[in-house]
């Protein structure tokens, strides 16, 4: 049993950790009132998604996708998810930066960082 767990491929571990991170992040975004904590929740979720992306592209025993010659027997790791994840990390950074600058402005304007104080418009 324990042996089985140890034999779990690394990609599966990353995949599962990624999903767990997504859930923790969501939990944080939904349950914490403090805007900074919400932002932390978002970054956790974002990171989780990135881990899922990387895990999807990984093949057990695959090599880095640097193709030398035309040897068809070598199994390469899919390079596309890795490329995509770079892009989405950058985007995640951008969003986080905007969220933080919103947090600063909200704090300046309302002297509060609680999400409950952003509920002046309703219905």
């Amino acid at each position, binding site marked *: 049993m324990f042996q089985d767990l140890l034999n779990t491929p690394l990609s599966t571990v990353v995949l599962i950790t990624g999903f767990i991170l997504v859930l923790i992040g969501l939990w944080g975004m939904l349950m914490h009132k403090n805007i900074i904590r919400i932002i932390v929740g978002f970054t956790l979720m974002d990171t989780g*998604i990135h881990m899922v992306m990387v895990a999807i592209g990984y093949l057990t025993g695959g090599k880095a996708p640097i193709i030398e010659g035309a040897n068809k027997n070598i199994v390469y790791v899919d390079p596309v998810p890795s490329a995509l994840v770079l892009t989405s990390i950058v985007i995640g950074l951008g969003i986080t930066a905007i969220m933080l600058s919103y947090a600063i402005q909200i704090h300046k304007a309302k002297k509060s960082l609680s999400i409950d104080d952003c509920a002046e418009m309703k219905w």
Partner: protein
Amino acid sequence: MVNSLTNPLNIIIITLLSSFLLPLIYQKSEQRAVNLFFAVLAAFVVISLSGYLQLLSGLPTIEVLTAGIEPPFSINLRFGIEEAFVTLAINVAALLGAWYLLPHLKTNAPLMLLFLIWIMGMNGMVMTRDLFNLFIFVEITAISTFVLIGFNRHNETLSAGFKYILAGSLASSFLLLGTMLLYFQTGTLNIDDLVAHQSLLTGPIGTAGLVLIMTAILIELKPYPANGWGLDVYQAAPTGVSALISVGVSASYLFALYKLLPLFDTLLPLIAIAGGLTFVMSNFMGLKQNQATRLLGYSSVGQVGLLVMALALLSQTNQADHYLLIAGGLFINHFLAKAGLFWLAGLAAEKDIKHWSHLKQHPVIFVLFVVLLAALAGLPPFPAFWAKWALVHTLVESQHYIWVGCILLGSLLEAVYLFRWYGYAKSKTNETAIVCQARQTFPIKLMVALLLLCGHAMAINFGLQPERVLLPVYAALAMLLLHKQPSYTKALVTLLITGIFTLQVLPTLTGLSWIFGMIFLVGSWVLTIGSLYKGTEQRPSYYPLLVMLILSLGSLLLATTTLEFFLAWEFMTVSSYLMVSLGKNAEKSSLQYLAFSLAGAFFILAGFALAYSETHSMQLSSFAQLAEHTVMIITLLLFGFLIKLGGLGVHVWLPGVYTDTDDDFTAIMSSIVSKAGLFGLFAVGIHITTQFNDIEALMFVLGWFGLVMALAGALMAVFQEDVKKLLAYSSVGQMGYIITGFALTSHMGWVASMYLAVNHVLYKGLIFLAIAGVLYRTNTRLMYKMGGLIKNMPISFVSVMIGIIAISGVPPLLGFGGKWMMYNALVEKGWYLQTAMAFFASAVAFLYLFRLIHTVFLGQQKTEHADIKEAPITLLIPQVFIMVIILAFSMFPHVLIEPLSTAISPYIASTITWTGHLLETKQGYWNGFMVMNVVAGIFLVPLFILWMLSKVTNIQPVKQFNIVFAAERPESPETTHYAYNFYAFYEKALGFLVKPNAIHFWDASAEWAHSFGAALRRFYTGNGQTYMAIILMYLGIIYLSMRAI
């Protein structure tokens, strides 16, 4: 190959280049940076426009490959006709929006830069064919949106912006995750490739990926109930930004949805439900909203929902030819109208729609406002009207009846809250004027012009001649140019235009259409003369609308297809509604009128669509081929026409409208416009004569309905104190007879019905004009405050007297002939009980007619009315003219009956014969000429004797103050006046019959709709975390329903 300068990829390249240049140039010179900024936006427009024109001329779709490799191994962009159209729309809106936002944008180079990137992101979302690339453009657009929303750093804006970020980041996480899952299953990110490998996506991972992507895009399109954050953004963001979010961002997401639809084959019903739910619910909630920008938000959300629903339903029905027309029409209509309204809301700078009356002081903005509202409400000639027409027809054909119900209900609700807004703007509380320059209204004007242009193009697309069918609206717009002229000039121009139109149209008509032509065109021409009595008033919109109304009535006569008919009908509805709204305090009653009229129009639309689904022809004459759905179609059409006729139960709009409109227009409304419903009945009726057997039961019910209406109308009229209300209820009653006549579906019944209609036109026009004069002089509508006016207003008295004799149907005037034929026709049909009912109803009518003439013209005169003069000559001229016609028709009834009989006999064989002045039916005969002579003799002889008597004796008539008061003076003396509560004893006996049940019912319905709207929006707590939770639940529900399918 693609012209290198106009390659759509240049949109992205130019943006990236200028994003480096712009801040640098801004350091040197602000003006140059602004110039560059506009140059880039103009280049966007040029690129998409030239691409659009090239594709329109038949060049193949432009495929932009990147990295020199064929897809799916590289990212490719596509620029087909649809992409070109949407990007063109986005770029034009962006250019105008930038113009509008310029004062804000030019303070800050990064803002200009972000604006460019924002627009590029939208363009990219439209063009890209790669799923991950789509995600990138989504994020580019989102990030710029977040910043642009918050640039003014108001409290509300920051809250809204942050909530938007939370919702947006959830949605984009879904999109990213979904994209990766699809990639995991198929190994490709190319959308076309994904569609080709759809079979790989049936497993749990593939399904989850599809659900995630679909939910992400739906969330961005703000579906109910997961859209509270979106409404906050619309409400709080700077209007220039809201405008582009509502149109540009939504457009790019809609297009993304459109291109992914082939992937979502199995999810189409869910998408349709999500869209339909959003459309109906947001319009319910809109009813409760008083915040201008939030109201626009509800409307935006609803319109986008409608588009989502249409996209999903149409791709199920496989009607590719209609697809683009409908989706494109709905899209461009929302696009132009919503952008224009957001900009206008920014100029008006007033949050509460109840305080929008300051708009009135700026006539140009006011007209723009009305046009934009009309466009948004889907009224003709704007694109949404055509699109909804086609959409309803397509959906009815594929038997999506419930969806049709949703569309019509949602549209009705939307029209109600939009035009309630107009009502507030129309109301007369005076406030500060709007401060704005022409430069700020320019984008709005351009939007209105584009809307009209698109409407014009749609008319061509539907195979109509716009210069003919859209004439009413063009004529009205042209008349608006005269707004600075005095009222006389405008009235004379109106008479000239409608006169020429009448001379053009009337000779082309035959049979029944000709008779209705006489009623609609000649009748309204004569009554228009009456309007000259208000010569001193400015009345800037009265005459343009009157022209529109009269021309639309004319177009109604010329219609040969259901589309032309419906178009003219809507024009007539809109113009008469706007005219009603011009009256003082007419906000409530005009809104009621609009709501009922539009509901009626939607019934008609549904009926026409159902007929089309059976016959596949829009010709009115194709009704003759109906077999399967005849009863349903006729029922739907009856609902529509009866609402216009003020049928019992739906008559509640009528008294308010007749009371609150300008007095001269009430005459036109009552005598002319109400006949449009009758024309509708006959226009359809003449084509279904062979199917009369099928609808016999329906007509039997209609016959009774008409008679109950006649009795109820008369009873309600009896108990009115307000003279216009009395006449309004009288109209309800008289219409009852006319409807029964139609329901008889026999030659004599129809002749009687038409005869009564012509009679009604004459006497109601006459009485309303006479009463208009009385109201003009006395300034009250309450009859007990009048009295004894016979000496001051003798001609008006004679008018009313002739009028009521004509109504009551006693010899010698022409009302008698109508009643006589009606009874004949009823007996001929074997409807004996109904005959008795008709007798009874007309007996009741005597009561109110007597009250009318007695309390207004006879009895004692009020002291304050001692010096009243006769009505203005311009009101008297048409009255005298109508009286002459009434007397002529009474003397020589065959002049009227013969054309009616011959007009109807092609459809139903005649049962009437003529010998000289003698009219013979199976039941008896009538000689109008003879009767007239006899009656004249009977009246003249005693009159002569009386005159002789008055010469020989010196009778002293009792004057008003010959009466001596004793004891105390009552607190409100008018209530002791004999004319007050004139028929109290009858009210005790019969009053229970006329309790305002219908009014209560409709008031309760309206109240219910509002409470329902209030309950629906309980989701919108304003809390960002609640909104996130709702989004997650939305995803869950979609996933579960997906599994259930």
